[in-house]
């Protein structure tokens, strides 16, 4: 939320050549911190509505990071789809079901040790990839995309990745039909 405001007011989507984006490292850590805190809250809150709200914070932080990567279109879509659409539906469903039982249940069951181990392993993998792979991914300054980022995405989606795009939309169609069939008692 806050990030999007800051992004709107301060982060240039089309930075002039002579200016650097404002306080990039600061915003990077701010947004990442928000995302991490949000992510932790998602799994630790007992109340599912609180979890969902924390997830929204995480997603907004992600949108902010996209903005910092000069990908405003992706950021906008992230907000519209995830926050405005999917999360609202999440909340909708959560509010419909009875919450009283979830309040009493333990949020972590006995497998928490296993889960922690898995998380640790995954973290170790990330670190190792980061350490070993530095050579593979040289640290280049992010080059602001010239001109219209949106148009590039459009031409890529409908050009190079046309087939994948159509497959994805077909999948979604199948999902919609499936949902209708499951939900409706008689068609």
């Amino acid at each position, binding site marked *: 939320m806050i990030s999007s405001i800051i992004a709107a007011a301060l982060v240039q989507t089309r930075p002039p050549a002579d200016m650097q984006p404002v306080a990039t490292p600061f915003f990077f850590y701010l947004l990442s911190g928000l995302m991490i805190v949000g992510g932790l809250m998602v799994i630790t809150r007992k109340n599912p509505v609180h979890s969902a709200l924390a997830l929204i914070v995480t997603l907004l932080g992600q949108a902010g990071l996209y903005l910092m990567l000069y990908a405003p279109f992706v950021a906008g879509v992230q907000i519209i789809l995830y926050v405005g659409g999917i999360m609202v539906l999440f909340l909708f469903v959560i509010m*419909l*079901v*009875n919450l009283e039982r979830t309040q009493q249940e333990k949020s972590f069951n006995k497998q928490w040790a296993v889960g922690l181990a898995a998380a640790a392993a995954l973290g170790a993998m990330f670190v190792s990839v980061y350490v070993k792979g530095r050579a593979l991914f040289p640290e280049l300054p992010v080059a602001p995309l010239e001109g219209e980022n949106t148009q590039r995405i459009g031409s890529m989606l409908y050009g190079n990745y046309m087939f994948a795009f159509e497959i994805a939309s077909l999948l979604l169609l199948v999902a919609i039909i499936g949902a209708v069939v499951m*939900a409706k008692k008689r068609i």
Partner: protein
Amino acid sequence: MNDPNARVSVESIPEEKPFLDASELVINMGPQHPATHGVLRVILKLDGEKVLGLECVIGYLHRGVEKIAENRTYTMFNPYVDRMDYVAAVSNGLGYCEAVEKLLNTEAPPRAKYIRVILTELNRLASHQLWLGTHALDIGAMTPLFYTFRDREEILKIFEKYCGARLTTHAFRIGGCQYETYDGFEQDVRNFLNFFTPKIDEYEELLTANRIWVRRTKNVGVISGKDCIALGVTGPVLRASGVKWDLRKAQPYAAYKEFDFDIPVGENGDTYDRYLVRMAEMRQSMRIIRQAVDGLPDGPVMAKIPKVLKPPVGEIYHSIEAPKGELGYFIVSDGSTQPYRIRVRPPSFVNLQALEVMCRGALVADVIAVIGTLDIVLGEVDR
């Protein structure tokens, strides 16, 4: 509430199971709620927006009118009846006075009868106006309320000039009318009729062809004529379901025999038909008033009745067509100055019982529309 015995003669609609086992929502609508027209409390059992069942809880305005009557003389009780259906106080008074007159085996003089008809029909107009305004407001149309109140004011002015009161008029006395009409009464009534004729068209312009209005009212709260009779529902609700029955025609009282008017009837028994029937009824009322004013006979307005009323021992049931339906008075006399028992048969109370049938399977918004279309007055429901 859900006992199947409770509604044998009503075609039963199978109750649907809540979808996906989402928890049922029980909400209390009222007694403080903008759309329950007073202190009606409706307990709604909802599946999302759908009404699975409802129960009316009434009695918040119970004042024990019937008990009060047993401790008052016949004359003293007369003002109390105005407080039941306070929207149509004149009709209440008419019913009570006629019932006692019948018990006394007397009759009001013809002029009094005509005045009674004029005032009662004016009151019917006022009652229907109030219904229209609040009903439209419930459905979300805000403006008609102010239009109807503007025009209702003219009727109340006539009442005020006639008897000094606007709402709880106490216009009639046992045996006739207390007052002769004031100078210019007839002219006032005629002026009002001329003033009001285009106003009904104005209301209809706002609502009748309004697409949203039609959608909100067509096929909402449908009740068949058979169900209406089984549930004892009377008045415009019954007529909108296609039963052509009006006590003014079926068992004429006061001077109604002498007037020419039609009984508007609906077809589908839905909220829209009830709306049309009431609108048509307003036009018929104006017809009656015009005839009554034109033919207002001369003569006394009060029959010769004793100062102290002591009706002979016996019991009587008399009912009239109030704006809401059949308003009946059952009076038992023990020969003393006070009634031994008065029972009021309130149309609103009986009509309200149909709410459950009319709302089955409907949505929350329909419940509001149906409460509005039943045109209940809680003062009368609870007495």
